[in-house]
């Protein structure tokens, strides 16, 4: 860095920044954090071991902080491609309101804080899983996979699948078959969910030169793979019924919701979603031919939320962990 560049940064960054706390919260991807907290909470509640309210609350908070740290790393590293895509062009680092170096520092500080809190409030297994999930999202997915392979979100989806496993580990101190099933549910949910979005936002990804499946392999191949992963996802979502993790409420959500998931995936398969055209601006705005993909994208979020809400309802209805043992 030359003297001139360094001086310019001193003036425009640091104390001279107009960034507000809200800009730093935006760095943490609050919407992603919400899903992380929700699925992590489900894993914690579904675990067969009671956890004190204080420890559970702090463990979930640590999980949220960890997700935020990973989000900050992602926004710092991806600011160049975020600037190209309409969906991400207003992010704080892209707008220059939060300097890239600060976003990295922010991510580092919150990684340390979240892993420390998890280790103290829960156990080292949960803390190690949290640290690994941040590492996986920030380095394996963001730095390596995202720009190099159409399988980016298939493998990278593991990062988003960790929260229920971390919640489970926070309560039990270990990882069991049920925790792996919860992980697998989100892992197999990610490809049809992400590719449904990518089908009707492929123009954005192409402009940013991200090899998302529709860009790299074409829309038809993506629609077929969505169908294959949808079948695998619906199948694995029934596994908790076999292990006893899911009860009647979960069975309803998994069977009825799964059937609808397959119907919507079938509609995408037979549609012309992702064929040429210009992307619309909003997250849910689509060209006429892309409606099937948009519907699957929207329903996929609702279905995953429904499955984990069912687990919370069944295992947490008595709130046995919350009030019986507030402190210990």
């Amino acid at each position, binding site marked *: 860095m030359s003297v001139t560049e360094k001086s310019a940064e001193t003036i425009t960054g640091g*104390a001279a920044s107009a960034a507000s706390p809200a800009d730093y919260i935006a760095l943490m991807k609050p919407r992603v954090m919400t899903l992380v907290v929700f699925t992590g909470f489900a894993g914690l509640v579904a675990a067969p071991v009671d956890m004190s309210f204080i*420890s559970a609350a702090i463990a979930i908070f640590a999980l949220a902080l960890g997700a935020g740290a990973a989000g900050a790393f992602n926004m710092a590293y991806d600011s160049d491609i975020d600037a190209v895509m309409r969906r991400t062009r207003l992010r704080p680092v892209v707008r220059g309101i939060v300097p890239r170096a600060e976003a990295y520092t922010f991510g580092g500080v919150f990684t340390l804080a979240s892993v420390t809190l998890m280790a103290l409030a829960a156990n080292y297994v949960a803390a190690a899983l949290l640290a690994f999930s941040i590492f996986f999202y920030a380095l394996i997915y963001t730095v390596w996979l995202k720009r190099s392979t159409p399988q980016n979100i298939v493998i990278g989806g593991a990062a988003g699948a960790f929260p229920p496993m971390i919640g489970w580990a926070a309560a039990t101190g270990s990882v069991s078959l049920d925790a792996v099933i919860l992980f697998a549910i989100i892992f197999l949910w990610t490809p049809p969910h992400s590719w449904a979005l990518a089908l009707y936002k492929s123009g954005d990804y192409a402009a940013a030169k991200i090899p998302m499946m529709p860009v790299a392999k074409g829309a038809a191949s993506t629609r077929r793979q969505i169908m294959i992963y949808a079948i695998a996802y619906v199948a694995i979502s029934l596994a908790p019924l076999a292990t006893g993790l899911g009860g009647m409420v979960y069975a309803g959500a998994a069977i009825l919701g799964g059937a609808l998931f397959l119907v919507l995936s079938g509609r995408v398969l037979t549609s012309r979603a992702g064929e040429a055209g210009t992307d619309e601006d909003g997250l849910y705005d689509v060209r006429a031919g892309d409606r099937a993909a948009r519907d699957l994208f929207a329903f996929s979020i609702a279905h995953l939320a429904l499955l984990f809400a069912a687990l919370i309802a069944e295992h947490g209805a008595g709130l046995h962990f919350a009030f019986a043992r507030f402190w*210990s």
Partner: protein
Amino acid sequence: MTDPTPEQTPERPRALTADEEKARKRRNVAIFWSLIGFILLIFLVTIQRLASNISAGG
């Protein structure tokens, strides 16, 4: 003595604008409360662990 080249000229910090001053104050307040919150969380975890260990030992 020769004058420094433009690249060597030391930059003088300029005064912050009113908006920048306000933003800096908001950030400082947020950092303050974040630190207080973190300390409280560590305190709570410590007390909870003490209570847990005492009840397990007793």
